[in-house]
């Protein structure tokens, strides 16, 4: 056992070093496979240690326990700092291997450069793993008989999938980054370049979208306080690359189709990955306080900072020198799709900037000796509202506008019509919902419908001009067009959900004896008392809450308060009745002196829409990926193509 471990430990830096030499063209590809295999072995070994309760490995001893169910033993592999870094490195190696596998159609020079850049990143990460956070550190000779158990918060099915998803996203941007650097090095940034990096960016973005949505969903039902987004530094760290990545996807579309905004696109590619790294730094160095923070470790922080300096500083220097030479390949007018997409980009980057400044401002404040400052939800909500509204206006119009130039008078009529229809529908919806009038909600809903309406309208127009029956026409539209439409729908749905739930939710903390009931909206919550139950590694008190609507039974909710043996910690498990238009949420608080219980009851309208929309966005991304352009590699060889403007961005 120890021997295998030692062998793998020796193998990791070797492969890492080999990857650094990946510029020797031919070496790059097999090295990528090799690195992936070894990291995979390391990962499997660690998982094996977990499953077999090998507490001589300190990481296992700290994060597992004999009583832990098997699926959580596996997810415990990435439940702590060292293991999550190993997962990170593995995912990076996975992406590298994937690039190696599917890059045969690329010019040798390009693929070697891309793999080389990824190799350099891997060297950094693997040495970080090895020198500051080795997950295989042993506890010999005095190892504990039983482990410290996994944090109960992490013992949840959502968490088995969430970190890998998120990492796929984060690290996926390294591919776009590597392509950008390769482009800068080679001085060749044309449509073909954009076409190569586009699918990679889209995949990464999809994973990140799903990852963030899962994280938010988990926070919602597991933390027991019913929030789904806290603007915590850790969440911001995942939101920033997402925003930058969204901007990058759109900008890549312009660069691919029209050969313009090259420097900007490259900058975004660098930005997206840099922000992923920055997130890692912020979270692991302890410079910020977060609910989710690791024990602060300045050594690790310093290491990542140096790594960050090399990667980001280096690439931005390269950018400063090389990007000036890029020339646009085509002309466009002020009112054209190019410019609208640029506006979209500026708005998204502005949003990224808000998150970045908001996250860093407390540090800046301290550095300038102005005292301590907190920046939280009220700030971000205020700052984000105008950004989102502006973004939505352009999301609606963008797809309607032609490349190169658009005469505004041709659009005016349909814009006015769309506006009137959206306003009518939004007003009707709000009126039907019957929870009071709110102008901001109205405006947001209007824009959601505006986006959906424009998506449909524009597709219909294109189908009609195709002059082949409806379904044939639908088929003629490219998959990437449908991907865009779907993703924009998803965005509209998410925003509608966010707006409704944050403006119309009802939260009550009430004191209840068995037999008490409370009315929230049309629902009656009857508290029937508590039961004592026992789980695998915990005991729990389980509340019994019956929900009825006008006498009709709706749900029977059983929120729990769990007491985990090993960590001696108490966890609240909320009970949720999820519905299409609303969530009912009950959490059990403390028993009070007079034998009653504190109970938290939420009514959250359209909660599911928030995550549903995110899933739809990701789906849109995947649909776009199946576009013929990416399946047929033939066109890539042409190199200098600029696809006609039939397909959407």
């Amino acid at each position, binding site marked *: 056992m120890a021997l295998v471990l030692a062998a793998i430990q020796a193998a990791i830096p070797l492969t890492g070093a080999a990857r650094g030499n990946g510029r020797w063209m031919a070496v790059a590809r097999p090295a990528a496979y090799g690195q992936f295999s070894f990291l995979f072995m390391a990962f499997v070994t660690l998982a094996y240690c977990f499953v077999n309760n090998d507490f001589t490995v300190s990481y296992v001893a700290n994060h597992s326990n004999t009583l832990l169910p098997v699926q959580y033993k596996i997810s415990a592999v990435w*439940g*702590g*700092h060292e293991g*999550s870094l190993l997962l990170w490195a593995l995912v990076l190696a996975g992406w590298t291997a994937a690039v190696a596998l599917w890059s045969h159609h690329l010019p040798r020079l390009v693929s070697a450069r891309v793999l080389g850049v990824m190799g350099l990143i891997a060297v950094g990460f693997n040495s970080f793993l090895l020198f500051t956070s080795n997950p295989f550190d042993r506890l010999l000779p005095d190892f504990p008989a039983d482990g410290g158990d996994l*944090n109960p*918060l*992490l013992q949840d099915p959502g968490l088995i999938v969430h*970190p890998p998803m998120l990492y796929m996203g984060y690290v996926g941007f390294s591919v776009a980054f590597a392509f950008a650097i390769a482009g800068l090095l080679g001085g060749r940034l044309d449509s073909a370049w954009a076409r190569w990096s586009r699918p990679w960016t889209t995949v990464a973005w999809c994973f990140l979208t799903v990852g963030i949505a899962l994280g938010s969903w988990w926070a919602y039902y597991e*933390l*027991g*306080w019913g929030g789904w987004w*806290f603007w915590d*530094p*850790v969440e911001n*760290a*995942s939101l920033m690359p997402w925003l930058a990545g969204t901007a990058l996807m759109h900008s890549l579309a312009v660069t691919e189709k029209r050969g313009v905004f090259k420097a900007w696109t490259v900058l975004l590619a660098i930005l997206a990955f840099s922000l992923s790294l920055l997130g890692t730094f912020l979270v692991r160095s302890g410079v910020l*306080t*977060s*609910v*989710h923070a*690791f*024990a*602060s470790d300045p050594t690790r922080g310093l290491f990542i900072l140096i790594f960050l300096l090399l990667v980001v500083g280096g690439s931005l220097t390269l950018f400063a020198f090389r990007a000036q030479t890029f020339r646009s390949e085509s002309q466009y007018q*002020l009112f054209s799709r190019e*410019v609208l997409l*640029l506006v979209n980009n*500026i708005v998204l*980057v*502005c*949003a990224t*900037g*808000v998150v970045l*400044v908001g996250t860093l*401002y407390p540090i800046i*404040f301290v550095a300038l000796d102005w*005292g*301590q*400052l*907190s*920046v*939280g*939800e*009220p*700030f971000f909500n205020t700052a984000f509202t105008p950004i989102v509204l502006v973004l939505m206006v352009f999301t609606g119009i963008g797809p309607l506008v032609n490349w190169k130039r658009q005469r505004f008078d041709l659009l005016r009529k349909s814009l006015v019509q769309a506006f009137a229809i959206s306003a009518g529908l939004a007003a009707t919806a709000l009126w039907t919902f019957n929870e009071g009038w709110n102008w901001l909600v109205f405006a947001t809903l209007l824009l959601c419908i505006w986006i959906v309406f424009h998506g449909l309208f524009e597709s219909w127009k294109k189908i009609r001009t195709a002059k082949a029956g409806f379904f044939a026409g639908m088929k003629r539209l490219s998959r990437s067009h449908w991907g865009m439409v779907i993703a924009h729908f998803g965005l509209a749905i998410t925003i509608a959900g966010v707006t409704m739930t944050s403006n119309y939710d009802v939260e009550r*903390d*009430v004191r209840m004896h068995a037999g008490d009931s409370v009315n929230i909206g049309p629902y009656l919550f009857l508290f029937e008392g508590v039961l004592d139950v026992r789980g695998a590694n915990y005991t729990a008190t389980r509340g019994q809450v019956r929900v009825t609507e006008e006498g009709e039974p709706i749900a029977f909710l059983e929120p729990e308060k769990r007491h985990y043996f090993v960590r001696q910690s*108490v*966890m*609240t498990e909320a009970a949720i009745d999820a519905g299409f238009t609303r969530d009912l949420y009950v959490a*059990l*608080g*403390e028993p009070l002196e007079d034998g009653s219980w*504190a109970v938290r009851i939420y009514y959250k309208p359209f909660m599911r829409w928030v995550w549903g929309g995110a899933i739809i966005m990701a789906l849109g991304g995947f649909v776009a990926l199946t576009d*013929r352009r990416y399946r*047929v590699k033939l066109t890539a060889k042409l190199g*200098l*193509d*600029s*696809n*006609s403007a039939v397909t959407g961005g």
Partner: protein
Amino acid sequence: MKIVMIVGLLLVSSINWASIDAYEFQSLEKEQQFRQIITELRCPKCQNQNISDSNAGLAKDIKDRAYELILAGKSNAEITDYMVDRYGNFITYRPPLTASTYVLWFGPFVLALLALIIFVVVKIRQQNNPPAELKQEQHQQVSQLLKKLEDLEHKR
């Protein structure tokens, strides 16, 4: 990612999850006001948590004080000021708008606006004296060729 990080808590903090206290109010407005203020005040002792979500003893004390102040008819702005007097700006998640926070509140917006204005100005200048469009023709040729290629693909 956040999830992964939580593990470290064991070493760091005194966090307990989700405290639920039932405060009773005469009116629904006061209850809503209370809900709002306790989500905007930060627990000074905890990691990044508001006093509503934290059940550290101190968070409870601050909640109790906020409760008393609301019963005494204070507005949320007044309560925030009251707490800032005691704990500094750290206590509120809504940073005050002062000279030192202009960059925070307006920085990104001003930059974005600036970028947009510069772009539009440059663009308009370019349009007023357009470069010779020699390449335009070539581009058309290329896109025509591509169009043919695409049609071929369609037929397949």
